[in-house]
Structures are given as structure tokens and as C-alpha cells.
């Protein structure tokens, strides 16, 4: 049996895999019969929204079920061994050595008390009985292949001494240290900036190609999977919706669900020039404890329009929001709102100016008090700013829920009883309850699935049309920017690189950093990454990172 598998080149065969998960002592089926085959040297992309069972399938491929989960049926034939039924001892001999796993958060997967190289050596020395020197040479070789800077010495650093992208690559090196037959990548670039993501993607792609290891690449980002995978499996609600080679899937998706996923990225808003300025940030500098994060930043937001602030993490986007709201009083410069300069510090501002400027946060999980019902969450700004009470308050809560397309029954729920998208809608409603003129949206869609993102963006656009509210929209995702913005502000290292209408900023010629940022956004073209890297190598442009 094993010999025929070898001849076919089939490394992994998943047949009728079913998983059940427990919640409140009730078992629910979370994966409902998944089949796929993986050949040696092939990269399989596994995509779907959160809750589709991607990660559970990824782990089940190793014969592992998370606590509170179990494999109920089906087989996972890895090189002829059924991992779904194999005894723990046999699986343990395979894990790390023949199957490796790369998790989303490298920072959580590394032990902060040991150097990178120590952790990369652990597996080969234990599993393959390599001598330390041999393993060290191989690790340095891997660091080199993954294009880590100073491959000879970077291994002696501790996890906190390297950047997020470098750590993610070091984790790939750790996974590859035993030259496994199969690597499972579970959203390895999700937490990274686009400019960093490119480096990690390119490194992974190159090393997978060189070593000819098979891989399963789990992600919710279609453009990323298009670069990485030979074949794509689309999961939804624990079942396979569609499976096809990457090019075929991109060119001609069959299932309606797949088509809807593809359509999300095409949401576009026609830009409009604004009439009259609502907010002017004039030459603001701000920082924490002597570290200057914002340096002479000026931004203009017109009435009833959306200004998107883009830039990688650390570029000062969120600090800008904090300076505008007064949470972090600016060191210099002024914030002019509706023709009047606002006091720098939050505590000096009156209730009326607080009301007119609201904020929506990135993570709806932490932005809503888990111990308050929706009624209380929405009712508080009403009574605080409008002194609404009793029936008037109740009626307004109903209107707000209606505005965000939720039924009145949601008023009795706790945030824990809502989905991520619903929570974000409640956050929007809480901001709207104050009837603001400007809403600062800090990465409001980046914690959400793509389909949900689209719904939220559509909702925000509709509300802007109806209520004439302005948005200062902070994001690092350029697809979102294209969908919602009228004007774009590009920030880099605490400075504004440029501000202009969307069409101006998005069409060349660009300032250097804008060009890099724009070209780093993955496109739904399987050749995009290779072409881009070839171009960049050709130009040999110094990368300002």
C-alpha cells in the first residue's frame, strides 16, 4: 500500500473527515465530511471565513483535535498511516519531524526565554539525532533561504529582538528544521503589514519550492492564497464548497459562494470632492514619554466625506486618532473642528464637542462592555448627550437598531451573544446614538471576515449618504480604501507622505513610499508575487523599511 502511494506521489489523503466540538455539553458537528488529496511537493490552499473549520481541519490533518473537539469519523491517511486512529506515541513520532505546523502568531509560539536558534535546533537534535553543529549549520542555511538578515548571527537573538516578519520567518525555519514531508501554515501572514507580508510570502514560497515539501496553506485572504497554492479548497460551515486548481478557480469560480467571495474585493465608491472643511489637523506633533510618534501632521476632512488614513503599523495612524480625540494631548499644533479649535486635552472639552466626534474601534470584542446589554450600551449615549429617557429612549434604540439592520430583539442581548459583524454594527450604532458629525473609524473592518467586511462597509456608506456624517477611516487595507474613501492620506513614520483625492493618490506617479505600499497589496493573480519580485529586483530599489 505504501509503495503504491509513493509511486502516485500521494502524500496525504483525507477521506470523509468529520469533527465535533463541544459547547455547553452539547456536541455540534463542526466539520462535516471533508475530502481532499495532497501530492508530494504540492501546496494546497484552504480558504473560508472564520468558523468555516479551516484551522480544525488543519490540525486534524495531524491527527490532533483541540481540547473540546474530537474526530468523529473519516480517515487521515498520511503516507499510509491513518493519523485519525494512530496511537499517541506514533503520532508524536511524526509531529514536528514529518509534519510541521506554523501558527498565526509567531510571538505566541516562541518561548521568549530562549534564543531563536536554540528553539530551531530542538526538534532536529531530538528527532533525527543530529549533532548540534550539524543542525546549527542547517538552521543557518534555512535562515539564509528564508532571507533573514545576518543569517549567521540572527539565531542568537531572542524573539523580542527581531521584528514580527522576521519572527514569522524564523518560525517557518523552525518548522522546516526537520525537513518535514508536510507543513501546515495556519494564517502565517495575517498579523503582518502588507509590506512585511510580501517578504514572508516570498520566503515561504521560495523555500517550499526549493525543498519540494508539501504544504497546506490556511488563510481567509484570497489574494494571498492565489500566490501560494497550486490548488484551492473552499470551505464553508465545515463542508467543501469547491475544489479546483488555482488558476481555474480564479478565472472561473463555479459555486455561488465562491463567486460572492471573489466579488467582495470589487466594491468601489465613486469619489466626490467635499464642500467645506469639518476637521482640520494643523501641524500636530504628539508622542509618548519623549518619543515623538507624530511629527508635524496636517490632515483635512471635508463635510460628509471619507478620508482614509493608510500606512503600515507604527506609522502613527492610531496616534493621530488619539491626538484628535484628545486622549493623547498634542505637544504642538491644533485640531480645528467645525471652525473652532478644540482644547488639546480630553478633560477640557465640553460635552457638545465630545458628542460631535465619535470613534469606532478595531476590535468589537473589546469595544463593548461584556456585562452590558445592547439596550444599555446604546441607551447610555442617548441619556448622556440627549437626556433621553423612558419611551423616547426606547424608541430611539429601536431606530438605531433599525439603522444598522438589526431587529429590535437584539436590545436584550449581551455582546457575547452576537457575532463579530453584529458587534461591530452595535459599535456603529453607539457612535450614531450621539448624532456625531465625524466618526473616526480605527481599522473597523480588519478583525472581520471578508463578506462581513463588505456588509459593514456598505452600511457605513449608506449611513453617510443618509446622515451626511464624515469618516476619518484608518486602515492598512487598500481594498477597503478603494471601497470607501473620497480622499487618501498616506502616512509613514509619523509623517504625512501625501494627501489627495483617491484617484490622484492611486494613480502614478507616486512618492516613493506610496508606490511601495500600493505595489505590496496582493492581487488576485497567481503571477503577481513573482512578477512583483522580479520587477523589484530589476529596479533594485532600496526598500525603505
Amino acid at each position, binding site marked *: 500500500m505504501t509503495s503504491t502511494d509513493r509511486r502516485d506521489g500521494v502524500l496525504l489523503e483525507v477521506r470523509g473527515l468529520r469533527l465535533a466540538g463541544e*459547547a*455547553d455539553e*452539547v456536541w*455540534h458537528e463542526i466539520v462535516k465530511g471533508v475530502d481532499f488529496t495532497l501530492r508530494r511537493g504540492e501546496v494546497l490552499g484552504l480558504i473560508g471565513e472564520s468558523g468555516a473549520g479551516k484551522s480544525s481541519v488543519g490540525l486534524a490533518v495531524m491527527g490532533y483535535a483541540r*481540547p*473540546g473537539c474530537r474526530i468523529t469519523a473519516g480517515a487521515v491517511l498520511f503516507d499510509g498511516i491513518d493519523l485519525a486512529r494512530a496511537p499517541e506515541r506514533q503520532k508524536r513520532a511524526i509531529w514536528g519531524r514529518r509534519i510541521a505546523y506554523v501558527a498565526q502568531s509567531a510571538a505566541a509560539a516562541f518561548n521568549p526565554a530562549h534564543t531563536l536558534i536554540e528553539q530551531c535546533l530542538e526538534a532536529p537534535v531530538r528527532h533525527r539525532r543530529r549533532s548540534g553543529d550539524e543542525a546549527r549549520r542547517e538552521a543557518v542555511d534555512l535562515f539564509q533561504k528564508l532571507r533573514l538578515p545576518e543569517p549567521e548571527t540572527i539565531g542568537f537573538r531572542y524573539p523580542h529582538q527581531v521584528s514580527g516578519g522576521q519572527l514569522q520567518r524564523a518560525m517557518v525555519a523552525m518548522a522546516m528544521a526537520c525537513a518535514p514531508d508536510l507543513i501546515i501554515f495556519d494564517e502565517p501572514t495575517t498579523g503582518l503589514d502588507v509590506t512585511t507580508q510580501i517578504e514572508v510570502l516570498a520566503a515561504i514560497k521560495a523555500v517550499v519550492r526549493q525543498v519540494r515539501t508539501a504544504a497546506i496553506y490556511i488563510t481567509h485572504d484570497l489574494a494571498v492564497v492565489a500566490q501560494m497554492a497550486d490548488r484551492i479548497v473552499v470551505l464553508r460551515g465545515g463542508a467543501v464548497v469547491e475544489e479546483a486548481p488555482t488558476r481555474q478557480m480564479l478565472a472561473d469560480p463555479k459555486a455561488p459562494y465562491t463567486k460572492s467571495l471573489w466579488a467582495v474585493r470589487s466594491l468601489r465608491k465613486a469619489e466626490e470632492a467635499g464642500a467645506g472643511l469639518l476637521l482640520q489637523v494643523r501641524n500636530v506633533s504628539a508622542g509618548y514619554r519623549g518619543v515623538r510618534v507624530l511629527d508635524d501632521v496636517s490632515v483635512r476632512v471635508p463635510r460628509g466625506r471619507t478620508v482614509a488614513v493608510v500606512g503600515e503599523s507604527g506609522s502613527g495612524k492610531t496616534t493621530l486618532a488619539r491626538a484628535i*480625540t484628545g*486622549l493623547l494631548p498634542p505637544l504642538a499644533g491644533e485640531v480645528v473642528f467645525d471652525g473652532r479649535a478644540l482644547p488639546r486635552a*480630553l478633560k477640557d*472639552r465640553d*460635552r457638545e464637542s*465630545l458628542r460631535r466626534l*465619535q*470613534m469606532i*474601534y478595531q*476590535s468589537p470584542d*473589546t*469595544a*463593548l*462592555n*461584556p*456585562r*452590558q446589554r445592547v439596550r444599555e450600551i446604546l441607551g*447610555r*449615549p442617548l441619556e*448622556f*448627550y440627549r437626556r433621553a429617557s423612558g419611551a423616547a429612549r426606547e424608541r430611539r434604540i429601536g431606530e438605531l437598531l433599525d439603522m444598522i439592520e438589526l431587529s429590535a430583539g437584539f436590545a436584550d442581548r*449581551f455582546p*457575547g*451573544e452576537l457575532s463579530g459583524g453584529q458587534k461591530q454594527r452595535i459599535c456603529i450604532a*453607539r457612535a450614531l446614538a*450621539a448624532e456625531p458629525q465625524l466618526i473616526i473609524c480605527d481599522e473597523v473592518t480588519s478583525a472581520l471576515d471578508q463578506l462581513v467586511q463588505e456588509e459593514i462597509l456598505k452600511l457605513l456608506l449608506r449611513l453617510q449618504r443618509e446622515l451626511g456624517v464624515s469618516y476619518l477611516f484608518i486602515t492598512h487595507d487598500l481594498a477597503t480604501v478603494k471601497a470607501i474613501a473620497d480622499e487618501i492620506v498616506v502616512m509613514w513614520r509619523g509623517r504625512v507622505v501625501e494627501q489627495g483625492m483617491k484617484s490622484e493618490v492611486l494613480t502614478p506617479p507616486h512618492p516613493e513610499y506610496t508606490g511601495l505600499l500600493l505595489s505590496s497589496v496582493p492581487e488576485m493573480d497567481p503571477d503577481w508575487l513573482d512578477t512583483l519580485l522580479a520587477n523589484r529586483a530589476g529596479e533594485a530599489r532600496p526598500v525603505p523599511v
Partner: protein
Amino acid sequence: MTLEAERAVPVARAVAFRASRWRGPLAGAWRGLRKAPVSAWFGLSVIGGYLVVAVVAPLIAPYGEAQVVGNQYEAWSAQFPFGTDQLGRDLFTRLVYGARNTIGIAVLTTMLSFLLGGALGLLAAVLGGWIDQALGRLVDVLMAIPQLIFALMLLSIFGPSVKNLVLIIAVLDSTRVFRLSRAVGMNVAVMDFVEAAKLRGERLGWIMRRELLPNIMPPMVAEFGLRFCFVFLTISALSFLGLGIQPPTADWGSMVRENATLINYGDVTPLLPAGAIALLTVAVNCVVDWFIHQTSGLRDEH
């Protein structure tokens, strides 16, 4: 109750996560209780028993609290179930009244220390900066002196009245409560919803009471149980040393001391108040253990 629970099952399934509050806190508490281990049941019933005894003490006790009814050190008999003490007072009666006095004072003290420590802890968590530093160092100073010795010293300065006893122990104990509420409060204070409340212009009191407090309740309740035990033991220890609850008020700590000599003659009577203290402490710990396990998110993984 069952009907209600059954009706709610499809809701729970549809929503696919815990929706226990849909059915009111009572149903949720009952659901939790049904799953509680034996130790928790044991603890709850013992605490319940103590409370009943404390409340209806005059009905159970055959004699008055400080009434001299017989000779000194009478043996166990039908008339005096556990004999009499060094003054000829009925020991059973004093045990029953002791529940009322000792537990009552301990609960009062614990509540006071939570009020003080909890409020200051949350204040430090929300405000941070120099207020946090000042309060923190003050607490460090108070904690640096051994608690029992400090309490003894203060009691001998201010005099051993019940009021002083409650105040002194409450203040000394609130240092621990301060540390806990500050630590868990800090975790909540960095959440976006607290920032949202600040941006809305909410006052400090509202943020502490409505945004922070409900979110730190589980660890605080668990801590309340533990602190109650310590306060209870401290009061008993102080009474044993003669500076706690003063005679003729019946209290278990001083009862152990007053009758301690009997143990030399092989009489187990002094062990009864000691046993009462031990049993309550164990019971409270059982309940707290279960509660911590319930709320800390620790799950049995295998």
C-alpha cells in the same frame, strides 16, 4: 425551571454560544449548581447551616448568651449538652451565639475591607499615574508589617472594642483587596470600551461602577470568600489572645482560650469551638474553589 431550560436549548444552539443569561440569573445559577462537585455542595450546605443557626440563635439556644446556669466546668449532660464553661455558662448556648457574633463581625469586616480596598484599587487602575503610585506605596508600607502583630498593636492603642476591631482589621485587610482589584481592574481599564466611556465624557465614578466593576466581579467574589476566612481566623486569633471580642460576648476564639485547660484532663470540649471555626473555613474554601474554577475559564481538558 426545567421547562424554561428546555425552551432555551434551541436558542442556545442557534446562537451557538453561551446564552445562559437569557433565562435570568436564577436559572443560570441553578444550572451551575447542578454541575457543582460534591465539595461545593458540602460547603454550601455547611455555610447555609451556619447562617440559619446565626439568624435564629435565640430560638435554638436553651439559655441566655451570658447567663450563668450551673457550676463551673460541668460535664456533658442532658441539661447541658456540652457542659458548662469556667463561669458556669452553658457551652452549647455560647456556641450558638458565637456563630452569630463571630460570623457577623467577620462578614461586616470583610465587606468594609472590600468597600475600601475595592474602591481604591479601581481608582488606582483607572487613574494610574501618581495616585496609583501613592496608594501602591502606602499599601506596601501597611503590608510590610506582620498583620497580626500590627493589629495587636493598634488594638492596644485604641482599645479592644468591637468597632475598633472591625475598623482595624478591615483597613489592614483592604490592602490585599486593593492589590487584587487594582490588578484585575488594570486588565479591564485598558479595554476599548473604557476608552469609549472616557471619550463620551463619563465621570470617574460611572466608569468605575458601571464599566469596570461588573467585569471584575468573579475574581472579587472568589476573593471575598477567601478574605472572609482570613478575617474570621484573625478575629478568632485576636479573641484567643484576649484583644478581640470582649467578654461576656460569646465568641469561638475566646471560648477556646477560656476552656483550654480542660484539654489537660482529656476533655474534648475546647475542641468544639475550634472545630466550628475549622469546619466553616473548610466549607468556605470548598465553595470558593468551585467558584474560581467556574469563572476563571479553567476547563478540564481531558
